[in-house]
C-alpha cells in the first residue's frame, strides 16, 4: 500500500479536519455541564471555519485542481465551489441550532458531530469521480441525516420522519448501488472516466446500458427529491428539527445535485440523448406535483418542503437545457451556471426562511403552523421583513437573489429553444408566488395570537444577518458571484477534465 503523497494529504485535509472536530465534540460533550452545551456548537463552528481554511489552501495551491487517491478524488474548482457551499450551509445551520436545541431540551454533542460527518460525506460526493467513493460519501451523509431527522426523540413526528426517510433512503440506495454495479460490469472499472469511455463505445440503446442508467437515475432523483421519488421529503422535512430541515433543504440537496452533475454530466454525458427525455418528464411532474401540493398546506415547514421540491423542478429544467445543447454552446453553459447559481442563492434564501421559522419555536409553541406566523410583523418586525425578503426571493422577484437563478434557467431554456418548457415554468412561478404570499399575508395582514416579542438568540441574529445580506447582495450586485461560478466551471479548460471528457 503506497503512502499518502503530500498532494493527497492536502486534498483530504478539509475532511480530516471535520472528522477530528466531530470526534472531539463527542468527547468534550461528556465533560461539559448542561448549561455549557453551546460549547459544542462553538466547536463545530470552529471546525467548519478550519475546514474552509483548508479548502482555501487547496484553492490557492492547486489552481487547476488536483487528483488523488488512485484517481478517485478530483478536487477541481467545481468541487471547491460545492465544498464552500456545504460549509456555508453547515455554518448557518449550526448558528440556527443553539437556541432551538435548548428549547427542545435535546442539546447533545452528537447533533453537531453528525452534522460535521454529513458534510464529510457531501464533500466526497462532490469531489468523487469514483463510484465507490461517491457511494460511500452518499451513505455517510445519508446515515448522518437519518439520525439528525429523528433527533427529537420524544417527538412522534420526528420519529416517524426518520423511519420513513431511513426505509425509503435505504431502498433507493440499494437501487442506486445496483445501477452503479451494472456500470462496473459494463466498463470493468469504478472510475467515472473509464465508465464514460466504455459507455460511449457501446450502443446507447443497449438494454443493459439503459437499465444501468435508469436505476442510477432513480438513486440520484431520490436524493434531490424529484417527483415521483419525493415521498420522503415532505414528511422528513416536517418532522425533522427545523434547523435540520433547513440544512437538508440546502446542503444535502446541493450535495445530491453535485453528485448528479458528476455522474450524469461528467460520467454519462454520452447518454444524454437517452436520459434527457426522462428528465423532461420528471421536471414537469415535479413542478406540477409540488406546486399543486404546496397550495393547500397550512404548515409552513411542509409548505416550504413542497416549495423546495418545486425548486428542484426548475433546476431540472436547466439540466434539460444542458442535456439538449452541445457542450460549449450558450444553452449548455447558461444551464450549468444556472444550476450552480440557483444552488448558491437557494442556500441563503431557503436557510433564511427556515431560520425565521426556527426562531418561532418557543417553550409552548411549536411554531410551524401558518397560524403561528400570523401577525409576526407586530411581534418581530425585523424578522417579518426579512422573511418577506426570503419569500420574494424564493418567488424570484428582483432585486432579491432568487431572480438571478430564475433568470439563468429561463435564459438557458430560451437558448436551447425549449419555449414551451419556459412557458410552463412561468405558469408554475405564479403558483409559487401564491403560496409564498400566503405566508406574507399571514405575517403582515393578520393579527397575531401572541403579543410577547420574539426572543432571538445571538446565533440566530448572525444567521439571519448573513442569509439576508447574501440574498440582497447577490440580487443587487451579482457580478462577483457570476464570476465565481464561471471560475468554478472553467473546469472544462483544466487538463484533468479536458482529458476526462475525451
Amino acid at each position, binding site marked *: 500500500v503506497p503512502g499518502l503523497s503530500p498532494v493527497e494529504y492536502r486534498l483530504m485535509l478539509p475532511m480530516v479536519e471535520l472528522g477530528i472536530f466531530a470526534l472531539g465534540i463527542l468527547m468534550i460533550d461528556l465533560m461539559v455541564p448542561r448549561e455549557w452545551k453551546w460549547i459544542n456548537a462553538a466547536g463545530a463552528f470552529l471546525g467548519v471555519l478550519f475546514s474552509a481554511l483548508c479548502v482555501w489552501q487547496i484553492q490557492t495551491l492547486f489552481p487547476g485542481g488536483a487528483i488523488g487517491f488512485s484517481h478517485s478524488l478530483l478536487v477541481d474548482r467545481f468541487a471547491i465551489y460545492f465544498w464552500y457551499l456545504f460549509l456555508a450551509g453547515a455554518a448557518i445551520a449550526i448558528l440556527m441550532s443553539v437556541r432551538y436545541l435548548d428549547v427542545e431540551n435535546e442539546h447533545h454533542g452528537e447533533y453537531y458531530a453528525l452534522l460535521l460527518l454529513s458534510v464529510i460525506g457531501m464533500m466526497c460526493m462532490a469531489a468523487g469521480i469514483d463510484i465507490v467513493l461517491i457511494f460511500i460519501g452518499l451513505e455517510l451523509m445519508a446515515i448522518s441525516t437519518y439520525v439528525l431527522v429523528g433527533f427529537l426523540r420524544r417527538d412522534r413526528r420526528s420519529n416517524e420522519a426518520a423511519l420513513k426517510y431511513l426505509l425509503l433512503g435505504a431502498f433507493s440506495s440499494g437501487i442506486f448501488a445496483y445501477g452503479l454495479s451494472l456500470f462496473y460490469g459494463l466498463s470493468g472499472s469504478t472510475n467515472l472516466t473509464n465508465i464514460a469511455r466504455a459507455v460511449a463505445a457501446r450502443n446507447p440503446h443497449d438494454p443493459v446500458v439503459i437499465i444501468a442508467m435508469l436505476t442510477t437515475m432513480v438513486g440520484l432523483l431520490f436524493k434531490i427529491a424529484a417527483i415521483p421519488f419525493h415521498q420522503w421529503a415532505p414528511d422528513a422535512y416536517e418532522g425533522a428539527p427545523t434547523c435540520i430541515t433547513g440544512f437538508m433543504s440546502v446542503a444535502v440537496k446541493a450535495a445530491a445535485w453535485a453528485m448528479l452533475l458528476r455522474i450524469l454530466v461528467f460520467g454519462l454525458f454520452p447518454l444524454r440523448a437517452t436520459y434527457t427525455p426522462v428528465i423532461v418528464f420528471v421536471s414537469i411532474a415535479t413542478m406540477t406535483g409540488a406546486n399543486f401540493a404546496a397550495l393547500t398546506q397550512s404548515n409552513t415547514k411542509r409548505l416550504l418542503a413542497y416549495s423546495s421540491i418545486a425548486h428542484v423542478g426548475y433546476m431540472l429544467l436547466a439540466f434539460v437545457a444542458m442535456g439538449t445543447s452541445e457542450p460549449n454552446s450558450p444553452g449548455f453553459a447558461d444551464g450549468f451556471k444556472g444550476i450552480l447559481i440557483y444552488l448558491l442563492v437557494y442556500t441563503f434564501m431557503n436557510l433564511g426562511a427556515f431560520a425565521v421559522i426556527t426562531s418561532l419555536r418557543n417553550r409552548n409553541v411549536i411554531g410551524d403552523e401558518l397560524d403561528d406566523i400570523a401577525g409576526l410583523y407586530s411581534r418581530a418586525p425585523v424578522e417579518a421583513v426579512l422573511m418577506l425578503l426570503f419569500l420574494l426571493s424564493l418567488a424570484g*422577484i*428582483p432585486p432579491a437573489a432568487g431572480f438571478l437563478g430564475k433568470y439563468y434557467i429561463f*435564459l438557458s431554456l430560451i437558448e436551447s429553444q425549449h419555449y414551451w418548457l419556459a412557458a410552463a415554468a*412561468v405558469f408554475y412561478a*405564479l403558483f409559487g*408566488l401564491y403560496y409564498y404570499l400566503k405566508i406574507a399575508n399571514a405575517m*403582515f395582514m393578520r393579527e397575531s395570537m401572541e403579543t410577547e416579542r420574539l426572543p432571538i438568540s445571538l446565533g440566530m441574529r448572525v444567521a439571519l444577518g448573513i442569509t439576508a445580506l447574501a440574498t440582497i447582495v447577490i440580487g443587487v450586485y451579482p457580478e462577483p458571484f457570476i*464570476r465565481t461560478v464561471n471560475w468554478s466551471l472553467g473546469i472544462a479548460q483544466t487538463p484533468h477534465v479536458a482529458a476526462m471528457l475525451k
Partner: protein
Amino acid sequence: MQSHILSIILFTPLVGALVLLFVPKENKDAIRWIANIFALGGFLISIPLVPMFWALRFEITPTHFKFLEGSANNWIPSIGAGYNLGIDGISFLLIMLTTLLGWVSILSSWTAIENRVKEYYVWFLVLQTGMLGVFMALDFFLFFVFWEAMLVPMYLLIGIWGGPRKLYAAIKFFLYTLLGSVMMLLGILFLYFHHHTVTGVFTFSIPELYKTAPQIPFHAAIWLFLAFFLGFAIKVPMFPFHTWLPDAHVEAPTAGSVILAGVLLKMGTYGFVRFSLPFFPQVLSSTATFLSVTARGWMIGISLVGIIYGALVSLMQKDMKKLVAYSSVSHLGFCTLGIFALNPAGLSGSVLQQINHGISTGALFLIVGILYERRHTREIAEYGGISNVMPVYATITMIMFLSSMGLPLLNGFVGEFTILQGTFTENWKWAAWAAPGVVLAAAYLLWLYQRVFFGTVTNPKNEKLHDLTPREVLTFVPLVIMAFWIGLYPKPFFQILEQPVNQIVQTVRPGYPIPGYPNAYPTVNAQTAPIAAPAQPEVTSMTAPAGRAAKPAHAARAPKPKGTF
C-alpha cells in the same frame, strides 16, 4: 459630460425611505413631515429637468434618448446588463407626472392613514423610485428589475391599508401582473439571445437591441409580440385582462389608487410605445390574420371593446370608486387605440391622454377618497345634495369631472380629440366606434355628479360634513392647473412629443408621410387633414430599417425659438 439629474430624481424617494427607517414609529407627525418633504423634494428636484429638456426637445441624438447616464455594461458585465438611464419626450412627460402625483398622493394621505404610518410612507417612497426607474431605464435588465420590484410595495399598500377584501385584491393584483411580466421576461431573453446570434454580443441595452430587431424572423416576432402584449395588456389593463383592476382599486387606500391609476397603468401603455411598436413593426404591419383579423386589427378591436365595455360597466356601478375604476378601463382603451392607430396624431394624442388620465383620474380618486374619509362609505345612494354642505369640494369635483369626460378647454378633450383624429385618418369606422365612449363618459360622470351633489341633503349623516381643509385644496391645485394648462395651451406638450413620436412612427411604418411637422397641434391645423392612407409595407422591406437612420423632414428643421413653458 454626464448629467446625473435622472439618478437624483430616481433615488430621492428611496433616500427618503431610508431616512424614515431611522425615525421611531411612534413619532407619527415627524414621519409624515419627513415623507412629505421628500415627496415634495422629489417633485421640486424634477422641475429643473423641465427647462433642460425643453431646450433639447428637437435635438436628434444617436440613440434618440437624452440625458444618458451610465453605460451598457457597467452593472453586471458578465451578462451585459448596465445601469443605463435616458429619456425622450414620452418618458419625460411620464416622469413629471410620476413625481407630481407621488407628491400629491403622499400629501393626501396625511389624515387617511392612521395605523402603521411609518411602513406606509416607506413603501410608498420605494414604490415611487420603482416607477421612476421603469420610465428611465434604457437597459432591459434594469427595466425588468424596476418593473417587478415595484409590485411588492404596491402589493403591501393594498394588502395592509386596503379595504375589507384587501387580501384577495392584493394577491390578485400581484399574480396577474406577475404572469404578464414573466412572459415579458421570456420575450426579453429571446431578444437578448437573438442579438447575440446576430452580432455575437450579449447585451441588454435597449438601443442596441433596437438595431437587431429587424432581423427577428416573422414567426418568432409574432410570439414575442404576444409575450410583450400579455405583459403590457395586463398592466394597462386592456379589455379581457382588466379584472384585477376594479378589485385592486376598490380595496386600495386612496393614495394607492391615485398612483395605481395615475402611473402604474401608464407603464403598460409606455411599454407598448417603447417596446412593442419599435421591436415588432413587422407584426403590426403584416397582413397575416388570426380569425380573419390582423394583429393590428386585434389591438384596435380590443381597445374599442374596452372603451365601450368600461363605459357601460361604469354606468351601472353603485360604488363611486368602482365607477372611477371602470372608467379607467374605458379611458385607457382610448390610449391603446391611439397607440395602434400608428400615426403621429394617434400616438402623441395617446401619450398626452395618458398624462391627462393621470391628472383627471388621480383627482377623481382623491375626490372619492375625501368623501370616504368623512363618511366611510362609497355607496352613491348614501349621498345627495353634497354641494350644499361642501361647495368648494363640489366645484373642484365638477372641474375634474368635466376634464375626465373631455370637455373642450380642459385636458381630456385635447387628448381624446387628437386620438380620434389620428384614428379617423386610418379608418373612420374605428373612430366611429370609439366616439360613443366619450358620450358614455359624460353620461356616467354627470349622472354620478347629479346623484351625489345635486338636490337637497337627503341623508342626515351628510349634514355635518365639513368642506375641504387647506391641505386637501392644496392636493388639487396642481392637478387643476395642469388640467387647464393642457386644455388651453397643449402646444408645448405636443412639441415635446413630436420628435420621439415621429421617430417611432417612422420605425413602425417606414415611408409614412409626416407632413412638415405642423407647429404643435395637429387637430387645429388644416394642413394635416388629408393624410393619404399609407400603403401597407411588405414584411420583407422591414429588414432595412430606413426609418430609423434617416430623419428626412425632421432632421433638417432648426430648433424653434423657445416658447413659454
